[in-house]
């Protein structure tokens, strides 16, 4: 099997198996389908890992239908696979496999639609990471979306699940229209859809069309990435979606949106927009910082543990957008390592919340007050996960943030990493705050007048003692261990840097894709020793503990209660705009797109 053939294999095999599963689903036992899905997940992981290894020796290009370009004009669709795309595709397949393993004992009964839709969703994500064609990217965006809406509504007896899926579907569809609008603009100008050919045809001059086409495509993709003010759907959908699915939503789907922005920028628009990169940087960092802090602060205000984790994902999106906004190879490298570290951590935490939901029947922190004493392993996993979210060594998020910090220093934004550190510590602190209440009953007693959050029905017949849920604990512990291991792999940083260099090499991509020149093996530039940033990593962990301690114990201090009330009132306006009304989300989306477009267009000209 040549590496070129691996690329289409990785997305079409799960599609074929999904159809097979739907056809035979009603006639075979549930376990057969589950096993088939897990085997497919493992197969795709292996295929994508092999693909990533091949891509390290030169970008792998597969022309569908065998239609290689004629005189620099692409006739068909190409998958152009660089190491970063392949690594993220492999990560997708890996997370899907773990999520499917988790479901093995999680649901008492899950009908055929669940594994079938999960495989479709995975295939869409893999295709999304591998494709080198702009319209094909949109198709996978929509396929990913439709499978995700259906899966979000999976527990359709719960009306908040269907409502969450509805808001998700509406907002993401508008995002898709924005992407199409951008595609129509560049296609009308250049008559090309292949990314490499587009970048060649757009040239090095930025006019209103090129700037706004990028703004629309980026806004559409950032809806998926949940950048503020496009993020409202995420918290609603994550809180109600089946927990194994949240692992994929928070772990890779949201980040896939950001990956695509980076991919479209570097493969298509970086030539045209190069002279204005400082404008793009400033605008995106502004959006990113607002997102990071809005998410971090909202996470602190949650008593629904899954919704808390969802807001933490929004905060981390803000951090990742800032990493991309540096617009350097090193920034991309840091972003990717951070995505992997964060995805594993968040996956582990969501699986922990799944165990709570499965065993205790709720994820309401106030209801669970002190109840986690009986679940020491769960508490340890949540504790480690919280430290990892803050970016404490030796977790993968720490390695990612140290790469991002070096990248920011390089272009004279030395202040940025410290600000991002505080945002990350906020999310870690929010999880620790919830853990302190659930495990030890710390913190001020819950306000009896407080509104209970929307009712969450248990995802399986919850309850009681059906023995130690070994498979569930094993899956979540495995993800947390991986989150740590990925930060310790020797050479990970320099491999990421090499892959980042490849990712931003527009001319190189063009030569390989359109002129079929052979690719070169990955350069492995030495990374700065992480020892220099160890101190800031531990500081982030300490800060997270401090935030949690303030939230848990400040009310015992003489002036503490007043301070808590002041903090609580700061939360009020933020809470008010997260009101769960879908028409508001549409208005915010329109306003955000208009703001992004206006800022870029007005400033770049």
């Amino acid at each position: 099997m040549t590496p070129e053939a691996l690329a289409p294999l990785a997305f079409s095999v799960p599609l074929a198996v999904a159809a097979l599963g739907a056809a035979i689903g009603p006639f075979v036992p549930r376990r057969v389908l589950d096993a088939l899905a897990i085997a497919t997940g493992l197969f795709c992981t292996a295929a994508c890992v092999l693909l990533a290894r091949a891509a390290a020796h030169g970008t792998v290009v597969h022309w569908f239908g065998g239609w290689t370009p004629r005189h620099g004009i692409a006739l068909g669709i190409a998958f152009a696979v660089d190491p970063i795309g392949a690594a993220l595709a492999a990560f997708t397949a890996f997370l899907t496999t773990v999520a499917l393993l988790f479901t093995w004992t999680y649901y008492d009964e899950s009908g055929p639609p669940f594994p079938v839709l999960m495989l479709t969703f995975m295939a869409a994500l893999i295709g999304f990471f591998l494709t080198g064609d702009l319209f094909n990217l949109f198709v996978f965006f929509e396929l990913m979306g439709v499978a995700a809406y259906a899966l979000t509504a999976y527990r359709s007896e719960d009306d908040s699940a269907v409502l969450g899926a509805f808001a998700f579907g509406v907002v993401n569809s508008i995002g898709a229209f924005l992407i199409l609008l951008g595609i129509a603009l560049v296609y009308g100008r250049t008559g090309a859809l292949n990314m490499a050919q587009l970048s060649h045809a757009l040239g090095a001059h930025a006019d209103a069309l090129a700037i706004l086409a990028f703004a629309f495509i980026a806004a559409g993709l950032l809806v998926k990435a949940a950048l503020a003010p496009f993020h409202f759907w995420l918290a609603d959908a994550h809180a109600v979606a089946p927990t194994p699915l949240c692992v994929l939503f928070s772990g890779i789907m949201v980040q896939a949106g950001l990956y695509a922005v980076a991919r479209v920028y570097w493969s298509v628009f970086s030539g045209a927009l190069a002279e204005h990169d400082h404008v793009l940087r400033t605008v995106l960092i502004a959006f990113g910082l607002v997102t990071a802090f809005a998410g971090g602060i909202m996470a602190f205000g949650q008593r629904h543990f899954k919704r808390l984790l969802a807001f933490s994902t929004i905060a981390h999106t803000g951090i990742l957008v800032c990493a991309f906004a540096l617009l350097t190879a090193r920034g991309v490298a840091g972003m990717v390592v951070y995505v992997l570290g964060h995805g594993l951590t968040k996956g582990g935490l969501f699986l922990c919340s799944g165990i709570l939901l499965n065993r205790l029947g709720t994820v309401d922190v106030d209801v669970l007050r002190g109840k986690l004493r009986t679940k020491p392993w769960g508490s340890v996993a949540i504790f480690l996960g919280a430290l990892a979210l803050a970016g404490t060594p030796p977790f993968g998020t720490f390695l990612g943030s140290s790469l991002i910090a070096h990248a920011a220093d390089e272009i004279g934004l030395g202040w940025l990493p410290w600000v991002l550190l505080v945002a990350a510590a906020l999310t870690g602190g929010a999880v620790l705050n919830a853990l302190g209440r659930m495990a030890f009953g710390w913190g001020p007693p819950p306000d009896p007048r407080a509104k209970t959050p929307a009712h969450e029905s248990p995802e399986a017949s919850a309850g009681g003692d059906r023995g130690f849920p070994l498979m569930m604990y094993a899956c979540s512990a495995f993800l947390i261990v991986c989150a740590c291991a990925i930060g310790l792999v020797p050479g990970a940083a320099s491999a990421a840097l090499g892959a980042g260099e490849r990712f931003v090499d527009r001319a190189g991509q063009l030569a390989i894709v359109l002129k079929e020149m052979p690719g070169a093996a990955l350069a492995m530039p030495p990374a700065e020793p992480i020892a220099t940033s160890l101190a800031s990593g531990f500081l982030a962990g300490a800060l997270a503990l401090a935030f949690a301690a303030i939230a848990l114990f400040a009310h015992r201090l003489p002036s503490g209660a007043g301070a808590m009330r002041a903090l609580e009132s700061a939360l009020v306006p933020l809470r008010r705009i997260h009101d769960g009304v879908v028409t508001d989300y549409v208005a915010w989306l329109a306003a955000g797109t208009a703001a992004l477009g206006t800022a870029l267009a007005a400033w770049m000209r």
Partner: protein
Amino acid sequence: MISFIAFAVPAWIFVAGLYGMATSRNLIHLILCLSVAQSSTYVLILEVGYRLGATAPVFGDVLPGTRAVDPVVDALTLTDIVVGATVTALLLAFALRIYKKRQTLDPEALRAMEG
């Protein structure tokens, strides 16, 4: 003149659809406005591949080599239409399910979660 009309129409449809969605008081109305907003993309994509005085890209009655419009935009719009129809139907099913449970379709009254 025709250029301005041609390209202003999809822009208008898109914004009108968005306006309808944001001011909607009924989820079904909102879904149909979403569908209208999507139709703006059909129109714009077809227009950018259009060529005055050219035939359709079907060389049955006309010989290959005749001036024809772009076949690619037709294929893209076809895909877009299928996507639009299926998403619309899926959202309608969601709305129906919500109605059965809550007996209302007013977005203001249907808050999934707050705060």
